[in-house]
């Protein structure tokens, strides 16, 4: 096969990134991680089965492993690095704060995908109840099993009423 390459420009987190020698097989995920050095977006399976690579494209959550980079030219991509208004730890996005406060992760590897997915979800408005959050956060696997705390974190930001007494994440000793 000839080494055919493309030239593409990706818009990521408000910045333009020229990819002059883009291999047409390159996924958006691999372009972010390997070419642009934006490793906050994670690769868990490469097959659309885990959700770790979730980013926003024009504000909608998508799986970047299931997207060819070349097809996303001209789309506005938002990754975890660009979620906070001023970028990063100084002024985190409310979801980022809530995830820390609710201990909504352990190893942290699925976390950027969870947070980007939650950002998309809140925009979709499917946060009326814990059950709805659970259903609509089910595209993101967490092998550490932080699901209950993830629901609590999303509910905090979406102002979803949690059932009193259920899944309080900070109960201590009996």
């Amino acid at each position, binding site marked *: 096969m000839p080494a055919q390459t493309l030239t593409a420009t990706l818009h990521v987190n408000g910045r333009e990134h020229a990819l002059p020698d883009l291999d047409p097989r390159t996924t958006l995920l691999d372009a972010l991680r390997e070419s642009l050095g934006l490793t906050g977006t994670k690769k868990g399976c490469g097959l659309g*089965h885990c959700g770790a690579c979730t980013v926003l494209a024009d504000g909608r959550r998508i799986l970047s492993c299931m997207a060819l980079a070349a097809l996303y030219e001209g789309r506005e991509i938002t990754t*975890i690095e660009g979620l906070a208004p001023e970028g990063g730890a100084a002024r985190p996005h409310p979801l980022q704060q809530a995830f820390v406060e609710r201990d909504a992760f352990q190893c942290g*590897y699925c*976390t950027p995908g969870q947070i980007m997915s939650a950002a998309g979800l809140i925009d979709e408005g499917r946060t009326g109840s814990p059950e709805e959050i659970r259903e609509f956060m089910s595209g993101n696997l967490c092998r550490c*099993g932080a*699901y*209950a705390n993830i629901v609590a974190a999303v509910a905090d930001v979406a102002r979803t009423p949690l059932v009193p007494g259920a899944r309080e*994440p900070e109960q201590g000793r009996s």
Partner: protein
Amino acid sequence: MTSTAAASVVGQPVSRVDGPLKVAGGATYAAEFDPGPGLCHGAIVTSTVASGRIASIDTAAAEAAPGVVAVLTHRNAPVLPYHEHKGLTDPPEGERIHLLQDDRVRHQGQPVALAVAETLEEAVYAASLVRVSYRPESAVTAFSDAVAHAVPPGPRYRDRGLEGDGGRGDADAALGAAPVRIEAEYVMPRLNHNPIEPHGTVARWSEGELTLWDKTQWVDNVRAEMAAVFGLPPDRVRVVSPFVGGAFGSGLRPWANVTLAAMASRHVDRPVKVVLTRRQMFGITGYRPRSTHRVALGADRDGQLLAIRHEGVSETSTYETYAEEQLGSSEYLYACRDVATRYRVAPRNVQTPNDMRGPGKVTGVHALECAMDELAAALDMDPVELRLRNDTIVDQSTGVPFSSRSLRECYQAAGERFGWSRRNPRPGAMRDERGRLVGYGCASATWPAMRQAAEARARLLPDGSAVVSSSSSDMGPGTYTSMTQVAAETLGLPLERVRFELGDTRMPTAPVHGGSWTMASLGSAVQAACAEARRRALAEIGRADADLAAVLRQIGEPVEATVRTEPGDELRRYSAHSFGAVFAEVAVDPDLCTVRVPRLVGAYGVGRVVNPKTARSQITGGMVMGMGMALTERTEVDPRDARPVNSSLADYLVPVNADVGELDAVFVDEEDPHVNPLGVKGLGEIGTVGVAAAICNAVYHATGRRVRELPVTVERVLGAAVR
């Protein structure tokens, strides 16, 4: 965070100190390190037979593909020394596969070639062009006849205390005489760790020194193994692993990606990155082995256990023997005079299993606790009451007392929170508002409290802050956070003035991050190093009561202490284990036989809890893994060729958010003055132990049907055909 009162920081629900970095996408995992210019990507080609030899391997097309730098096979790979190396996490019997060193294939999915190219896409494409043919040899792959061909673990396991046969008294005679007896067989499938981060390594050689950025629970062992494989002095190898995207045991041994990345990097004289695909995660890493257990219990009519006989067989490979402590809990969990255990391994043409969260206990306790439920039914006795009736303060397998044991308190606390008293004892008698059958079940949980030697360094800086370090790992339990708490409290400094570092072989030596012993081992070393550094600083100005930060400013230069701590003989004088009780509620669709788990409630006696917030997360996370084991997880192995047939996250089903209902975990107050200086017993594994049994027992209570093979599929609940 506002300034935290230093003296009370241990025991506080502190948010993870590495949290802000992780939620910002700023935590750097192994495959994300930039080794500098010239990075190449390696893609692994794997075998498609379970046993045999490579007849031919054609790399011409791959080598001619665009961007390809090299294609390594056994024919051109460098001959490596592969000196003997047996780390604590390596099977003592047998020898690891020597990668690309000969034409022999020992399991499905064994690496047989590595394509190295400028980009990942080019490497993956080149790998697809490598043509390999095999001379297959007969392979033993099915597990159905394993019991008949199983063997004891072997002499080196015996030296480690895992003989295969154990117990006391005469279990057969006691069983024969027992007025109430049950006997049943339990089957557990192979399970894969499936951390969301795949295993991956970036390797770089520079002036004969090898640097590896790797996903591991034990940087020092990766260094030791690579030094042995490449014939290097260990100080010529550096391994860096500050963040681990989940491991659950999969990071206990270096997998092929480490050696291949290092080999290729030296071969092409450029940095090389090798990351396993998800499918390769099923063929190259270890896994919890398939096992079959047979349990016989005898009791008097009041529920006093008279006999326990527990036999287990699990799969291993042909080139190494992986054995785990599956039956020990049957010897100490309950009071019983006559106990016999017999554990065997069945070598198969598969890759070697390895420890997965709660190794051995998850398996053995599942069988025992399902059997206890069957005994309770046979006795017409409340399952909780049966456990409490056989509670003991002495470990009857050794005759020494438990350092602490709160099994009874755990059953009381969890049972109360769960509402066990609402349980109608008759199976099939409870329904929810949707007409589903409701079942309540319970099980005990246990995990040994162990401790290893550990070393930590505390460096106190003139600005009144401290950096504490050790080569440990944080795959998710919160090592960064809990060690920072111990250090801050010991030093008397505010939490935010203390930074804990880990994951680098240049740091003082930590034990392997596993076994639920990191806090007991390293926490003790951190505490000792901080106490010593503080003492030195205060000694310099000759005052023992001064404010440390002020003292450090006064001294004007760093004060440092590196301390190594070791366990004493306390674990010979006491039998030390964490204990717990877990309750499950299931809802079973009476027609479709789907099983859902609305609630899991557990109570645990784990000694002191350093951080109730992260501790609770550990336990509830372990519960989720136990739920997966109970209901959905299995690695299906094709009996014809040992190929894992569901090697993707679409077919190996770990729980999703919508599967998880209410999870409740509490810790009973427990002080253990014997076990280690911190009084901690460990809680990384125990959350998974017993969960599947509690769920199976609840399914029985809901339906009257015993499902003795995991996972509890709809077919098994329905009692229909296979699967």
